[in-house]
């Protein structure tokens, strides 16, 4: 049921993509609103699918459910569906849509919808392409039996989602050749630069919290808050790149264009942290 709903949401995201593309071509703002509505609907299916899987995940180990409400909350947190590549990809896609909709609400960026919706669909689509990704529910191994899992993974993926949006804004920024646009011709480079910066700040804050919560958890589970494991190192590399992006804004010669370039490199580092480390490098994060 949960898996079916994920695919339903992917279909809905594809429809949203088509509507957003119509908006780009026809320049009709009405299409942007329709696209947003469809995207919200898709997010609804997606959310429901994650909740259903969460319930299944809790049921799987229901025998170990502790007493007391505090213990119950900890138990539910521990068993969030975030413990393998399939679950994290589904959550990554969900975060991208959610974060995009929040930023769209704040800044009004329907132009990014035509790129963000297919990106969200593609992330889930990758699940069926990548080797060794299984949607089977399995109980968590001891190292993952901690509520830190949820805090750490959620903050990291919200960061990745924000970086994805900053990436899309940067791509559009670099493809724009003009500085000022006439009304109805889309966003100016100036606006795109602001969006890139603002979204990157949110991503940077989330990534910082994600890395710190990961360190707190590592200190509990492995006895050291930082062990230069490949995944840790790559998350730090990503952090460095976005730190330089935020500071680049203060340097006239790096402002704008180089910020967009750093955002694109940064998102490459995000993807490598997520996929590359698992497929190409070894490390302590072998389970994810």
């Amino acid at each position, binding site marked *: 049921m949960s898996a079916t709903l994920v695919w339903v949401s992917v279909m809905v995201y594809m429809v949203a993509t088509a509507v957003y593309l119509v908006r780009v071509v026809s320049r009709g703002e009405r299409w942007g609103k329709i696209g947003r509505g469809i995207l919200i609907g898709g997010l609804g299916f997606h959310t429901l699918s994650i909740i259903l899987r969460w319930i299944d995940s809790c049921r799987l180990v229901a025998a170990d459910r502790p007493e007391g409400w505090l213990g119950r909350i900890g138990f539910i947190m521990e068993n969030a569906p975030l413990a393998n590549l399939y679950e994290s990809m589904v959550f990554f896609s969900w975060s991208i849509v959610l974060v995009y909709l929040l930023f769209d609400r704040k800044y009004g960026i329907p132009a990014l919808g035509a790129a963000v919706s297919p990106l969200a669909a593609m992330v889930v689509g990758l699940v069926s392409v990548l080797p060794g990704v299984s949607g089977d529910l*399995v*109980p968590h*191994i*001891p*190292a993952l*039996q*901690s509520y*830190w899992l949820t805090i750490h993974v959620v903050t990291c993926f919200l960061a990745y989602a924000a970086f994805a949006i900053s990436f899309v804004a940067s791509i559009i920024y670099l493809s724009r050749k003009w500085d000022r646009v006439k009304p109805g011709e889309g966003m100016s480079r100036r606006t795109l630069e*602001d969006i890139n910066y603002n979204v990157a*700040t*949110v991503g*940077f*804050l989330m990534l*910082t*919290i994600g890395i*710190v919560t990961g*360190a*707190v*958890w590592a*200190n*509990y*589970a*492995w*006895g*050291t*808050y*930082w062990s*230069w494991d*490949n995944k840790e*190192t*790559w998350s*730090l*590399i990503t952090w*460095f*790149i976005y*730190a*330089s992006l935020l*500071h*680049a804004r*203060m*340097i006239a010669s*790096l402002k704008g264009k180089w910020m967009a370039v750093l955002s694109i490199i940064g998102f490459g580092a995000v993807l490598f942290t997520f996929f590359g*480390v698992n497929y190409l*490098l070894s490390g302590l994060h072998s389970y994810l």
Partner: protein
Amino acid sequence: MRVISFFKSVKLAVALILILAASSVVGTLFPQNMSPHRGVEAYGQGMYRALEFLGIFDLYHSGWFVFLVLLLALNILICSLSRVRRTYRLTTWKDSVDSGGVPSGLPLRRTLKIKTPADAMWLKLGVGLARLGFRANPVADGDLRLDRGRPGRWGPEISHLGFLVIIAGMVVGSLTGFKGVVDLAEGETEGQVYERSGRAVSLPFEIRCDDFEAVFFDGSMRPKEYTSWLTVIEDGQDLFQRKVEVNSPLKHRGYWFYQSTYGRIGPAPGEEWIRLMVRPENILMDLEIGKKKALVDTVDEIELLRFEPDFVIGENRQATSRSEQLHNPAAQIRLYRDGEPLSEQWVFSEFPGFHPPADETHTFDLVDFGFREFTGLQVARDPGVPVVWTGCGLLILGLILSFTVQHRRIWIHVESRGSETDLSIAAGARGGLRRFEESLDEILETLGRRRDREEGARS
């Protein structure tokens, strides 16, 4: 002075951050902390020596990497020190000598004539701005300075301080901390642990493993949880017992004990027992060390002489154990006839049927034996950890302040002309002013103004 202005540069910071990022990438491309033997095998003698010289195999602790990190720390420190003064002045209206009026060059500016007396206008404007959270700082008659969100201005300073504190904590940890491991069999007590280099470190107390338990998910070898019950002993007295699991360490006197691995080793001396399959009768028989037992259907007796968990033939062709691990469990048994030793033999768990029958009629297979579970613990002491957490807290607090609280300042100059008032208003902020501009215009709308001249926001 030139050195200071070099280190004050944001460009240097960006360059150092990107160099650190690139160096960190290199560290993930080469295996870290590999043994020289394997290194030479993988890269060849010359290449390995060269990479080793560059610190590639322990890159994150190499001199040049640490140097780069400290350089960045110095850069941030000097940048922050030079900013602190400016930030202090900006948040306390001391950044310029205020001679009244409205300064030029601010991103938001409005000049208007209002058809109400100054007093009534002040009231409306003051209430409106107070509702937006602005605090007033009167300067002189007709001049008012307001601001809000001062903590936001301190955000970058706080997060940079946090970064420096984290580095300080890491330095403290690497200078005074230590990491080690200890394997404890059930019932065993240890007062020392071992560093990765093999060096033994004495603890100021002792630790005993009372019990160990591994639970697996039904029908699989997938571990569900493993648990040790550890007792801390000081001066020969049991202090307390604590259950230690993965994700739930024991802490005592700054030492943290983590559940890391587990396994099985041979039994404690004097507690050895074995289970033999006696053939051809196919009867199971348990033997405890040092206790003779009658062999099935005969008047003969059998005794377990010794048990070796990792049997090897050592020096002088003596049987011995290479380790306590159960790599090659073997038992030596002796048969007696009429109370006199008849024969001796070794039986092996891994190699059944290795020896000919001892009394020409019976053969023995070693099918089970006593063992102890041991728990593999990681031990760490890192006085830098609280410092690092303080730094992380400051870093996150600073980022939240920087990104969510905007310091906005307003300059107001008023000239009263009887029943009319001339109002000049200007505002500046860290970051954009778009939203504030809307709110300000809403307030100005209520003043019953007569719009004369208006300059749009330049930001």
